[in-house]
């Protein structure tokens, strides 16, 4: 076998192996998307009921709470960025990071100091590489976040917002995550989580202008709101974590699908080249034999004379 042909054969073998791996990863990601979507759906009733309850307290009483009142001058904001632990997901992480950087830039232009909180190894690596300050980070659960993980993430954020800005607390909390729109579309977006605007929450809870009943609060409206708001923030963070996970798996599936397709194309091109090389080799061999025998015939014809 000629050297050229051997090189092609070897490359075809290696690309075939890669294709098998990416195909497997694609199928794993596809099954995980479905699982993640199911988790998003399972967490919806809790989130809905909680939103309703928050609206009920917000509209049914004139209670003031640090988590709902807008500070007059916002000096410091917290940005929570949700990325994934592992890559191989196309532009998933870079889109989220880009969105966070745009938001940070905008907030800084408004004269606010920005504290960054990060979930996921990818985002953390990005910030560490550029030696930017990260207030706190969490890794290790982005593929399958649980409610306990969301609580873990929410706790220091709620603590920071309850503190005064002068003591190192923050006045606002923004969250940057990737919304799972569909299997094909996931968009990185930023939302202001706190302070909570009750009007917006009310719109979400009762879009058709439904009137909420007058509740009897047990033990009191303030206590209920006190207990309710941290739970609401946790559930929002949980929802964002779940959507990010679903988006990540969908992005991985898409990236792996195109990798598989590209590997298939590469194999096709390489096979063509290998065939051409084989054919060229055969042609060369034939012409060598023909040439050789012609030379021999010429030589023997010469000696006869």
């Amino acid at each position: 076998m000629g050297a050229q042909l051997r090189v092609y054969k070897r490359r075809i073998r290696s690309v075939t192996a890669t294709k098998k791996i990416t195909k497997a990863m694609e199928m794993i990601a596809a099954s995980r998307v479905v699982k993640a979507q199911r988790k998003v759906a399972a967490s919806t009733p809790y989130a809905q009921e909680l939103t309703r309850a928050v609206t009920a307290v917000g509209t049914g009483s004139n209670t003031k709470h640090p988590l709902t009142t807008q500070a007059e001058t916002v000096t410091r904001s917290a940005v929570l960025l949700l990325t994934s632990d592992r890559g191989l997901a196309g532009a998933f992480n870079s889109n989220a990071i880009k969105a966070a950087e745009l938001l940070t830039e905008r907030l800084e232009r408004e004269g606010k100091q920005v504290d960054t909180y990060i979930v996921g190894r990818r985002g953390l690596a990005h910030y560490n590489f550029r030696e930017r300050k990260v207030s706190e980070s969490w890794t290790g659960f982005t593929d399958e976040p649980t409610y306990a993980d969301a609580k873990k993430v929410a706790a220091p954020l709620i603590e920071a917002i309850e503190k005064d800005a002068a003591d190192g607390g923050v006045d606002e909390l923004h969250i940057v995550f990737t919304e799972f729109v569909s299997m094909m579309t996931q968009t990185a977006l930023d939302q202001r989580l706190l302070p909570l605007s009750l009007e917006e929450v009310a719109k979400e809870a009762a879009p058709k202008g439904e009137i909420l009943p007058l509740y009897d609060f047990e033990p009191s409206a303030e206590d209920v709101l006190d207990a309710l708001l941290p739970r609401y923030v946790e559930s929002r963070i949980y929802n964002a974590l779940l959507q990010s996970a679903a988006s990540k798996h969908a992005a991985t599936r898409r990236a792996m699908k195109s990798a598989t397709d590209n590997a298939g194309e590469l194999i096709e091109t390489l096979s063509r080249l290998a065939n051409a090389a084989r054919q060229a080799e055969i042609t060369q061999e034939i012409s060598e034999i023909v040439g050789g025998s012609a030379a021999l015939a010429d030589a023997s014809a010469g000696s006869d004379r």
Partner: protein
Amino acid sequence: MAAELHVALVAADREVWSGQATLVVARTTSGDIGVMPGHQPLLGVLESGPVTIRTSEGGTVVAAVHGGFISFADNKLSLLAEIAELSDEIDIQRAERALERAKSEADASAERRADVRLRAAAAR
């Protein structure tokens, strides 16, 4: 037909139980509260404790609920809990082990959680 109310017991990551009931007893921060159909709209903070639901078929559902809220309006009752387990889902041996461990480590909240689980399991 006796009056009924619709109950939904939801944990953060799933719906634990839902159905028709005639009476729900839960523990709020200011004491036990019983809700029957036609109760005035209510929103309360729950303590860790067992929740008893008397279903319209005459059965009883007991669940261990750890923190959360009870809200009732329009004959619909929702129990929101971060963690909720039905009594027949509770692994008694595991709960007992957890109780002993919590006692030896003097972890008051873990002890209370395990205790609530055992009480809910005992009531089934």
